[in-house]
C-alpha cells in the first residue's frame, strides 16, 4: 500500500478520533469538517500547534493546529476540576495541545498495527506561533479542518519526514 492511500486513511481516522475526543473529553461539538485529499502546496499553522513524528511503516508527521480561542476552550474543559496555577496557564494550554495529540495518535495507531511490530511515535513538540510552511517537491501534505463554535483546528499529515529537520525547516 503506497503512502497516498495510507495517508488518506490515516488522516481520516485521526480526524474521526479527534471529533470523538472533543465530544467525550471536552464536550465540544464539531459543526463542520472538510478534508483535502489532494496534496497541499503549503501548511498554514495557527496560533498554537503540536507535532508528533510517527515511525514504523507510516513514517510521517501529524500536526494539530489550533485557533487561540479553541485551544483555550479545550484546555478549560479538559482540565475542569483540577487545581491549576494561573501563572502556569500558558504552559498548561500548550501541554493540553500536546497531550490531546498524544492521546489521539496513540488511540488511532491501533488501527494501523501489524502483528509483532509496535508503531512508536515521538513526544509532542509545541509550536507557539502562526507560520507558513511551503511544500517541497517530494513532500506530501494532507489537511483536514474542523470547525467548532469556539474556532477551528487543522490536522496536517506530512510525509515523508526525511525532508525536514527537527525545527520543521526545509533541509
Amino acid at each position, binding site marked *: 500500500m503506497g503512502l497516498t492511500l495510507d495517508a488518506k486513511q490515516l488522516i481520516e481516522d485521526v480526524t474521526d478520533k479527534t471529533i470523538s*475526543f472533543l465530544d467525550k473529553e471536552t464536550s465540544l461539538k464539531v459543526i463542520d469538517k472538510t478534508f483535502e485529499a489532494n496534496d497541499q502546496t503549503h501548511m498554514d499553522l495557527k496560533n498554537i500547534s503540536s507535532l508528533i513524528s510517527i515511525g514504523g511503516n507510516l513514517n510521517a508527521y501529524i500536526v494539530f493546529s489550533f485557533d487561540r480561542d479553541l485551544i483555550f476552550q479545550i484546555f478549560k474543559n479538559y482540565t475542569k476540576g*483540577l487545581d491549576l496555577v494561573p501563572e502556569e496557564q500558558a504552559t498548561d494550554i500548550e501541554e493540553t495541545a500536546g*497531550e490531546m495529540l498524544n492521546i489521539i495518535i*496513540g488511540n488511532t*495507531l491501533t488501527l494501523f498495527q501489524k*502483528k509483532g511490530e509496535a508503531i512508536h511515535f515521538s513526544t509532542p513538540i509545541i509550536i507557539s506561533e502562526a507560520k507558513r510552511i511551503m511544500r517541497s517537491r517530494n513532500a506530501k501534505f494532507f489537511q483536514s479542518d474542523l470547525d467548532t463554535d469556539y474556532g477551528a483546528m487543522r490536522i496536517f499529515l506530512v510525509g515523508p519526514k526525511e525532508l525536514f529537520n527537527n525545527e520543521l525547516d526545509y533541509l
Partner: protein
Amino acid sequence: MEPLNIMIVDDSSITVKKLSKALEELGHTVVQVARSGREAVEQYDRVNPDLVTMDITMPGMNGIEATRQICSQYKDALIIMVTSHGQEQMVMDAIAAGSRGYIIKPFESKKLEESIKKVIERYG
C-alpha cells in the same frame, strides 16, 4: 482496599494532575512524580512505592524500558501502564517487561480503580 503510596511516571503535567486527582479521590497518596523513565528508575529505590503508574512515550528512556529495569531489580514491583498506546504489540511488550496492568488514555476513574484493585488482589 488499603490506601496505597503511588508513584506517577509521566512527562505530561496535565496527565499528572488528572491522575493525581483521580488517585487521591480513590483514597491513595501520590508520593512521587517522575517525568521520564530514567527518573523513575533512579527514584524507585528511595521512594519504594506500593504501586507505579507508568506512561510509555517519554523523552529519553521510555516506560517499557523503565519497567523492565525496575522489575528486573525489584521482583515485587507493581507497575500499571497508563498510556495512549492501544496497540496489541505494545501491551505485549509492556507485560514482557513486567507490567501488571494496562490502562489506555483517556482513562476513566472507575477503570483506574478496577485496574489497581485487580493488580493488588493478584500480586499485592
